[in-house]
């Protein structure tokens, strides 16, 4: 059901944890739905210099969070905002149909974190 890449990301997730001094934090999903993703971004000059995540959810949710952090690490905010859920799915070598919604959460969590950063910046 899951590709080797999904399993690898699930078993050895990259960038798990929190950033105490995050510049932007995004949280999406709800425990009721069985999926919560929380993204922590450290940003310097509009570039993501560090990223961590925490996820409550299924294997696909963990794997998509993990790979998404890899995909945006070192990228500009503009680039990171362009990350779509299908890019995440492709990078994982595919996801079962009923799990695709998890990849949407990863996209949304990153967008939420960037939005959070921007909203603080403005102030």
């Amino acid at each position, binding site marked *: 059901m899951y590709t080797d890449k999904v*399993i690898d990301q699930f078993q050895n997730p990259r960038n*798990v944890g929190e950033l105490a001094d995050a510049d932007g934090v995004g949280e999406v999903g709800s425990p009721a739905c069985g*999926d919560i993703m929380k993204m922590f971004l450290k940003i310097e000059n509009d570039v993501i210099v560090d990223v961590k995540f925490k996820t*409550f959810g299924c*294997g696909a949710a963990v794997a998509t969070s993990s790979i998404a952090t890899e995909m945006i690490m070192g990228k500009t905010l503009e680039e990171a905002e362009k990350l779509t859920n299908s890019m995440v799915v492709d990078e994982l070598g595919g996801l079962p149909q*009923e799990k695709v919604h998890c990849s949407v959460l990863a996209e949304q969590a990153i967008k939420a974190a960037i939005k959070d950063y921007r909203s603080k910046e403005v102030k």
Partner: protein
Amino acid sequence: MQRRYFDYAATTPIDKRVLEVMIPQIENNFGNPSSVYSFGREARKSIDESRDTVARVLNAEPKEIFFTSGGTEADNWAIIGTAFANKNKGNHIITTSIEHHAVLHTCKYLEKHGFEVSYLPVDEYGMVDPEDVRNSIKESTILITVMYANNEIGTIQPIKKIGEIARENDVYFHTDAVQAFGSIEIDVKDLNVDMMSISGHKIYGPKGIGALYIRKGVKIDNLIHGGGQERKKRAGTENTPAIVGFAKACELVTENLKESAEKAIELRDYMIKNILENIDEVRLNGHPTERLPGNVNVSIRYIEGESILLSLDLIGIAASSGSACTSGALDPSHVLLAIGLSHEIAHGSLRFSIGKDTTREEVDFVLEKLPAIIQRLRDMSPLYNS
């Protein structure tokens, strides 16, 4: 990698002795039992003998046993068949909120066809109160359907009591015994049931076969129409090898019922005790004693069921979860919600089911590995603060 199976409640491996009686049936006894010639007569004989066996283990009459394609069909038939056949008497059906989908979705279907269904609540252990059943009966009630034992949390219902109430009120009573049969002793006469569903693949028998017990005199429409098989009640060329295998499986599970149950209960209670003691923020789901011998169901806070299953699978352990993520749905198990769990906690539930081949070594392996898996996932969880 050695695989350890803890999902006997989902399906069971076939007993070698069952397969042994099936193979010659498949190879040689292929005749159509409706035919007059010898090929057909032999198949007919095999089916008759199988029906006798199934009747015997349930304390039913052979005429009261009807073979179906499985537990789901048996449930559908009992409910749809009696509902339509008795709709002149009323349109009200009583069931519970923790039935298997084979019952629940069938009731939902009937609601679209003008039937009214009461879904009774259960207590925190998943137990139905017979008095609730009694109080829900009204003039228009034509059927009560309450499962014998729950497939997720293992709670065993007071079927005999509910059967008494049904009979006093002259209402048909069906029980889905797909999980109970083979795990606990069943005597349809003693139980006061009018209909009962059982299934082959849950008792080390073949898949694609089950039976509906229909007490003599019950008014029920056919679900599957066509040829005159099963005394004109269930059409379709009989699946002789599966029927023969099913009967053998019924015989074998019944033979060893006591010892297997005792063994399973011992492993079950050992497993439950160990998990509750060694992992914190875990709760047992289902009734502490009135539960299926092989059922262990726990909710593990802060983490989600499928990720635990996946972690277990990666070390060869097969278990099951009540989490929606398993099925791609959003809502977790209706059973866990019905016993009062929050969505969040329900999502973190895990079922281990123990079967006749389960060993202490296998249980110990799970108990050894589980804490670290849970800790790892909790460390990733935004809900967990160590």
